[in-house]
């Protein structure tokens, strides 16, 4: 029998306690243990970035992190972007500028670009490209994603 451990993880401001196997990945914890399926699994090589969330303020690929490593920590997922029924400016910009087609990569793209804009509120197109280098999109060709992030940056700066 694999051992099980109790973990406490705060996800989008809500405290969750679960008894899990140490082998459980954070992405499996989010999707299967607490039912937040906005975070996607797009690969098994840790390359695609669809599973991107933040853990204690830092971007991580939740498929490349154990749930036990998030014990006592704070996780933000795509579900936490919307506030009081209002979409996040990035979500609005992705919708407006066609930054998604099938939408599979979008949760990870949104989390990576949110973190980018927190670090660098007015990134150049080059900096945007670098900011989403860990996220793959098989549909859009990235052009509209970059446009959307750029537009959201302008809007969030209030200019």
């Amino acid at each position, binding site marked *: 029998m694999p051992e099980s*451990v109790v973990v406490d993880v705060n996800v989008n401001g809500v405290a969750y306690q679960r008894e899990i196997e140490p082998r459980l990945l954070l992405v499996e914890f989010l999707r299967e243990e607490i039912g937040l399926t906005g975070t996607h699994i797009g690969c098994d*090589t840790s390359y695609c970035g669809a599973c991107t969330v933040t853990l204690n303020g*830092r971007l*991580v690929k939740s498929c490349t992190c154990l749930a036990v490593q998030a014990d006592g920590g704070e996780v933000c997922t795509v579900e936490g972007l919307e506030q009081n029924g209002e979409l996040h400016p990035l979500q609005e910009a992705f919708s407006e500028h066609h930054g998604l087609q099938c939408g599979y990569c979008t949760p990870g793209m949104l989390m990576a670009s949110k973190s980018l804009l927190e670090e660098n509120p007015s990134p150049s197109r080059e900096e945007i490209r*670098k900011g989403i*280098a860990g996220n793959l999109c098989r549909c859009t060709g990235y052009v509209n994603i970059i446009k959307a992030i750029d537009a959201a940056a302008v809007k969030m700066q209030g200019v």
Partner: protein
Amino acid sequence: MRYETPETTRDAAALLAAEKGEAYILAGGTDLLVRMKAGLLEPDLLVDIKQVPAMNGIQQTAAGFRIGAAVPAVELGEHRALGRTWPGVVEAAKLIGSDQVQGRCTIAGNLCNASPAADTVPALMAAGAKAVVVGPERRRTVPVEKLPRGPGTMALAKSEVVEAILLPQRPAKSGDAYLRFIPRTEMDIAVVGAAVNLTLERGVVKTARIALGAVAPTAVLVPRAARAIIGTRLDDAALEKMAAACSAACNPIDDKRGTIAYRVKVAGVLARRAACIAYERAGGKR
């Protein structure tokens, strides 16, 4: 699988020593978890080192810098004094994967994973970095170039843990640089990596260390390349000789990222460019 979070390095080593099955240190997990997901290994015990105070934080001491083995790459980029003193080491760490990977991965993990293409290893070798290695009984300080033995194998006992990486203090007029070549602009494995570290005296190279990655079973120091530029102002003839020594030191593989002939050629070219950057960072003018 058991998961442990010891609070001292010695306890971490003792846990490894006591485990009968397969036991691994877990740092950032960006290599280990990928291999576990691929079914390449199934540990009985993971020893997470993130809770060990001696393995966290970057300290500046009289001897130089001490970078804890659990420090993620992103923190190297945020440390001003480290970036000023060892820009080449920091730029190598900032090349690992993307922001998501850098938030987790460590340079000690990059070293211990023992990939011939690991980006920080040539930069650490060129810098003269040392690893603080702790076992259940004793602790030793080992030059980084003495640790990798071949792809995936390290000169470490089963119960030995790297506690920190030490970078020396350096004289004024010093500079280092790391360049890698990959087919894409981001998120790929080095075809060749080249690191150069040098100190100048009145514009003349007084000391130098040059290391290459991805061109042999481990990253390698190339003393002959360093000798080719020592005593010069990095003139074209010296660079030519250095590039030839780098190419001669290569013993690479043929793969989809680059043929043997290509890697051998690119090693010289990259080392040349890295040397020029290091020279400029040291305040030299060619």
